[in-house]
Structures are given as structure tokens and as C-alpha cells.
């Protein structure tokens, strides 16, 4: 304990808020929804000096609350994100969504302030269970299925985290959530759990599958919390882990190809989110003080500018009911304010000087080159040009400009505009005055993004990327927006797995009914036999090594989890 004030779990105000939102209606509920992040943020600010709250549970020390420089930054970030997203969704008359959003934000805070792996696991799963309702709240068959797939994958991440945590505890005797490092199978299991939520390549598809199916407001919450909590966990447990450099570089590059040919603009944003996560993952892998600062600062900025872009697209979806690039265009005529706010988000994600992305992404790039990762640096540079192309230009261009779709609508409700306005102001403020953000970073460093070299290089890169867009369009080489689905990793579990599983399930059903009579008979015989020969000393009652049991339990849970979906065909 470093302060005299009694610790309050940062998730608690949000859980209370969820309860109040359940009971209240109208302006009273709106007041609660807006007040909770403010109160929570103020409460956190009181503990900025650091808190470590521990208690004994059986033989183990649990740490439900650890406030240090790293968790504090994400804590502030999640309060800001929650406030903006709650303001943005204030007009929604849907108790399910608002309660789920409060529980989700609270759980994300719980995960970030967890000082031990068991607490982390509890909030990790709570995030999954609460956030899925933001997808289901769309109340369509499509959203129901996408939400189910999302939930299965998120819960698998949680099960892996629990298994890894217990295996680590078996090895080291402690549950403390500290530096783990890639050393031994237990650490790889935890690494997988974090990687699944951080949308590592091949494990990324849940994000691009589920986020576009969420409600217009739900996607804003989803984009803020889950993946950033995973980034926090990676920065805590695996800084300097070399594979992260390559994983991160791959994450920056491959999604931009998908983003160029994707038609659903919120799916474009989901791919571009993986691209941005790649910069963070790469920074964590490089692991120097500058790289970690860059990764964490970029997470901070990304939540705000990606939130702004999701809000702008959410506003378009809310007002027009459409989200495909092929259906939109010319909206600047009837939504000029939204257009400008979207362009601010686009400039920020593209890392234009004076916007927030620039002051954090350049740290990761500088760190890559300082550590002699020349090829990685080139990949990041390619991704920087690419992100401008698909998120910076494509999103605003196809939604608000391009050919006039003929859609005439109005600006979104005032609360939506205000929320986007706050995010836009933050993007510009952090871009113009980065010292405020730098002072919150885990490592104290003197760093300035604004020297002539950086600014000129970045402006040249961006303007000539834009020139490529102009040229490709004038030469009619730019691929048109088409109504389509692009095959990604999800094909494995939406097409291949159900295809393979269907005959097996059918066969198993037939076999099950055939063996039923046999089993009843055999069971009776076996019970008599076991009681006679073994009693409580029989094999299944013996002490088994902890790690092995945990793994089997985890696999069993996994089987129970997946089997019904395969059987019901819901994985498709």
C-alpha cells in the first residue's frame, strides 16, 4: 500500500453502473452512464502514485489490484474510451447493450489492473461474456452466428490462459502476473492465449468476422477494449520476446491487402485495426525502452482514432442503414460534420504530422531501425504507406465522396457528434502536444517526433501514397468496390470443419443409439467390478501431476465448448 486511501477496484464503479442502468430509465440512466467513467477516472487519479492490494486465497497470494505506470496508462485510456463510447451510444434505447457495455468496460479495467493470473483469467472471460451481447444486440441471424463464433474463440483464449496460468503455478509456485518470457511450454500456452485476443496472424479472423456484425455503437466498444487489453498483457509478460517482432511485422502487412478489396467499410476498419496492432506487437517484441513506449503510446492513440473511425462509420450505418462501399458515396453533401470528423480520424491513423498517430508510430519505427532491424523497418514503412491507402483514403473516400450514391440523409444525433468531436479534439491535441502523453509512458525518455527529418519523410511517404491512389483511379486501375466475401482463415472453421464434422457427427449419432443398450449393461458390470477391487485407491482417485490434469480439464472444456456448435452447425 502506497497510499492511505482504501483501494476500490476500478471495475467496481462500472459494475455498479451496470446494475443502475438495469433499473433506471431515461435521463437518470444517461446521467449514470456518463458519470461512472468520470467518477472512476477521478478515483484512479487519486491512486496515481501506485497501489498493490494483495490477499491470501488458500495457499496463494492474489493481487486483485495493481496500479503502476503501465496499468495506470491503460486505466486512464479505458476510462476515456468508455466515456466517449457511452456518450456515443446514449441515444440507444436498448438496456441489453448499455448494461453489456458497462460490464465490458469494467471487465477490461479489471483485467488491466489484475496483478495475478487468476484474477486476469476471471476478467478475461468476463470481457468475452459481456462483449458478445454487443454483437447479439443486432438481433439478426447473421449476428447471432458471428457472435457465437466470437464467443467460442474468446472463451478458448480464456481456457488457454487458465491452463497456462496453472501450469506456470505448478512450475514456479506463484500466480503473480509479471514478466513471463518465452521459456517452456507453460509460457507458450499463455502466449497463445494473449495472441488469440491480440489477433495474431492466423488467429485474427474473429475480429474481422465479429466487429462488422456488431451494432453501430457496439463496434466502438469492441474496438477499444479486448485487443488493447491483450496488448497490455503482452507488454507486461513478454517484452523483448523476439518472435513478436516478426509476428508484429506480419500483422502490419497482410491485413492491408484484404482491406483494399474489402467492401464492408467496418470490416476494412477491423483489418486496419490488426495492422495497427502489428505496430504495437512489433514494438513489444523489440523491447527497448523506446519501443515499449512507442507500443503503449500507439495503443493509447489507436483506441481514440480507431474509435473515431468506427464512430464515423457507425454514424453512417445508423443514418443510412448501409455499410458497403459499393452502396455508399457522396455523403459529404448531407453529413459534412461527420465527414470532417472522419477525416481527422483518417489523418490520425495515417500518422500525419500534427495528428496523434504520428507521435507514437514514429517511436516504434525509430526503435526498429536503432536496433538494426532493417527489413522489419521496411515492412513497417510499407504498412505505413498501406494504412494511409486503405484507412486514410479509402474509408472517407468511398463513404463520403466517390460517386454520388444518391443517398441524402442528416447528421447523426447530437450525442454521436459530440462523442466524435471529443475524440477528434484528442487526436489533434495529442498530435500537437505529445508531451502530455509521453509523461504517462512507462519509461522516462527524451523523445521528439517533430524534427525536420521525420516530418519531411512522413509527408513525402503519405503524399506520394495519395498520388498512387489518384493515379490508379484516373488510370481506372483501382479495383471497384464489389459485393463479395473474401476467403480468409475463417474458411477453415466455417467451411472445412463443418464439412468434415457433419458425416462424423451423423455416424456418431447412429453409433450412440446402437451402443446405448450395450453401455447400460457394461456400466452395471463395471461398477460392481470397481467397487469390489479398487475402492478409493483405484487409478482415477490417485494423485495426478497438476499440470497434466489441468491440461486434460482444459481440453475437456474445449471439447464441450466446441462440440455442440459443430453438431448444431453453428460454426458455419
Amino acid at each position, binding site marked *: 500500500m502506497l497510499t492511505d486511501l482504501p483501494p476500490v477496484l476500478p471495475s467496481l464503479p462500472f459494475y455498479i453502473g451496470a446494475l443502475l442502468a438495469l433499473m433506471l430509465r431515461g435521463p437518470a440512466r444517461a446521467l449514470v452512464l456518463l458519470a461512472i467513467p468520470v467518477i472512476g477516472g477521478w478515483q484512479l487519479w487519486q491512486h496515481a502514485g501506485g497501489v498493490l492490494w494483495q490477499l491470501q486465497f488458500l495457499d496463494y497470494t492474489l493481487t486483485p489490484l495493481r496500479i503502476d505506470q503501465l496499468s495506470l496508462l491503460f486505466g486512464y485510456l479505458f476510462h476515456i474510451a468508455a466515456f466517449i463510447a457511452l456518450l456515443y451510444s446514449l441515444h440507444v434505447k436498448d438496456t441489453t447493450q448499455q448494461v453489456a457495455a458497462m460490464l465490458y468496460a469494467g471487465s477490461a479495467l479489471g483485467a488491466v489492473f489484475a496483478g495475478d493470473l487468476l484474477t486476469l483469467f476471471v476478467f478475461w472471460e468476463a470481457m468475452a461474456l459481456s462483449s458478445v451481447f454487443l454483437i447479439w444486440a443486432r438481433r439478426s441471424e*447473421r449476428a447471432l*452466428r458471428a457472435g457465437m463464433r466470437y464467443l467460442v474463440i474468446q472463451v478458448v483464449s480464456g481456457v488457454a490462459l487458465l491452463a497456462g496460468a496453472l501450469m506456470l503455478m505448478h512450475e514456479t509456485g506463484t500466480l503473480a502476473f509479471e514478466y513471463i518470457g518465452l521459456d517452456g511450454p507453460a509460457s507458450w500456452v499463455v502466449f497463445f492465449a494473449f495472441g488469440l485476443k491480440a489477433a495474431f496472424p492466423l488467429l485474427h479472423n474473429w475480429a474481422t468476422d465479429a466487429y462488422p456484425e456488431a451494432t453501430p455503437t457496439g463496434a466502438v466498444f469492441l474496438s477499444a477494449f479486448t485487443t488493447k487489453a491483450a496488448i497490455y498483457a503482452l507488454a507486461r509478460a513478454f517484452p523483448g520476446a523476439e518472435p513478436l517482432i516478426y509476428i508484429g511485422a506480419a500483422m502490419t502487412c497482410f491485413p*492491408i*491487402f*484484404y482491406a*483494399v*478489396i474489402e467492401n464492408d467499410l467496418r470490416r476494412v476498419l477491423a483489418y486496419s485495426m490488426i495492422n495497427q496492432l502489428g505496430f504495437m506487437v512489433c514494438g513489444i517484441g523489440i523491447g527497448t525502452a523506446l519501443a515499449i513506449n512507442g507500443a503503449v503510446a500507439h495503443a493509447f492513440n489507436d483506441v481514440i482514432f480507431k474509435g473515431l473511425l468506427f464512430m464515423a462509420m457507425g454514424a453512417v450505418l445508423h443514418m443510412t442503414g448501409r455499410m458497403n462501399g459499393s452502396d455508399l458515396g457522396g455523403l*459529404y*453533401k*448531407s453529413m459534412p460534420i461527420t465527414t470532417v470528423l472522419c477525416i481527422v480520424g483518417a489523418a490520425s491513423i495515417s500518422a500525419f504530422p500534427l495528428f496523434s498517430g504520428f507521435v507514437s508510430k514514429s517511436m516504434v519505427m*525509430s526503435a526498429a*531501425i*536503432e536496433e538494426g532491424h*532493417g527489413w522489419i*523497418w*521496411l515492412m513497417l*514503412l*510499407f504498412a505505413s*504507406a*498501406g494504412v494511409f*491507402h486503405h484507412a486514410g483514403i479509402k474509408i472517407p473516400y468511398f463513404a463520403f*465522396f466517390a460517386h*454520388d450514391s*444518391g443517398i*441524402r440523409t442528416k447528421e447523426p444525433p447530437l450525442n454521436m457528434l459530440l462523442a466524435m468531436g471529443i475524440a477528434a479534439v484528442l487526436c489533434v491535441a495529442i498530435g500537437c502536444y505529445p508531451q502530455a502523453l509521453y509523461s504517462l509512458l512507462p519509461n522516462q525518455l527524451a523523445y521528439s517526433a517533430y*524534427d*525536420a*527529418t521525420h516530418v*519531411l*519523410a*512522413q*509527408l*513525402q*511517404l*503519405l*503524399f*506520394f*501514397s*495519395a*498520388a*498512387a*491512389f*489518384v*493515379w*490508379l483511379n484516373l488510370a481506372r*486501375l*483501382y*479495383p471497384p468496390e*464489389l*459485393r*463479395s*466475401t*473474401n*476467403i*480468409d482463415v475463417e474458411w477453415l472453421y*466455417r*467451411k472445412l470443419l463443418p464439412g468434415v464434422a*457433419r458425416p462424423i457427427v451423423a455416424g456418431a449419432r447412429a453409433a450412440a443409439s446402437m451402443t446405448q443398450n450395450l453401455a447400460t449393461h457394461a456400466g452395471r458390470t463395471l461398477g460392481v467390478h470397481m467397487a469390489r477391487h479398487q475402492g478409493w485407491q483405484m487409478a482415477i482417485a490417485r494423485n495426478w501431476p497438476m499440470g497434466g490434469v489441468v491440461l486434460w480439464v482444459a481440453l475437456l472444456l474445449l471439447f464441450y465448448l466446441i462440440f455442440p456448435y459443430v453438431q448444431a*452447425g453453428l460454426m*458455419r
Partner: protein
Amino acid sequence: MSEHDKTHFFDKPDNVRLVLRVFYGLCALLLLGDFVIHRHVYHSWERLWGFYPLFGFVACVLLVLIAKEMRKLLMRDEDYYEKEAGKDAD
């Protein structure tokens, strides 16, 4: 005059041309910046004159052309996953 008939900024080809000309001008200015501003170089490629403009342009053209080719391999109907699901339900 209804909302549909109103002429907006980018409806006039002259305005589009003006915006593009300003954009080309800025590109040229930035390219000339390489002569004026002395930069700290970390990577040997950065020493090449016009490295960043060239890289940005070529990267984006490649990105789009490769992505276009990817469509041939990856693109399916919009209801690719739903279609099969519907069939199985029968």
C-alpha cells in the same frame, strides 16, 4: 429547389481539377524538400534521392495491384457462407 438538385463542391469538374492541381503542387514541393533539408540517415536506402516519395508511390501501386490479383483467388459471393448453411438446413 430540392436537396437532390443542389450542386455541391465536388460536382463541378473545375473544383476537382483545382484540388488535384494543389495536390500535385504540394507533391512537387515535398520532392524539392529533399534538396533543402538535411536529414539524419539511419538506413542506407534513405540516402537515395527521393527514397520516401518513390517508396510510398511504388508500395501503394504494388499493394493495390497485388490485392486486385488476390481477388481472383479469394473472392466469393456475398452470401458464400450463408448459402451453404441454408442448403444444409433442408
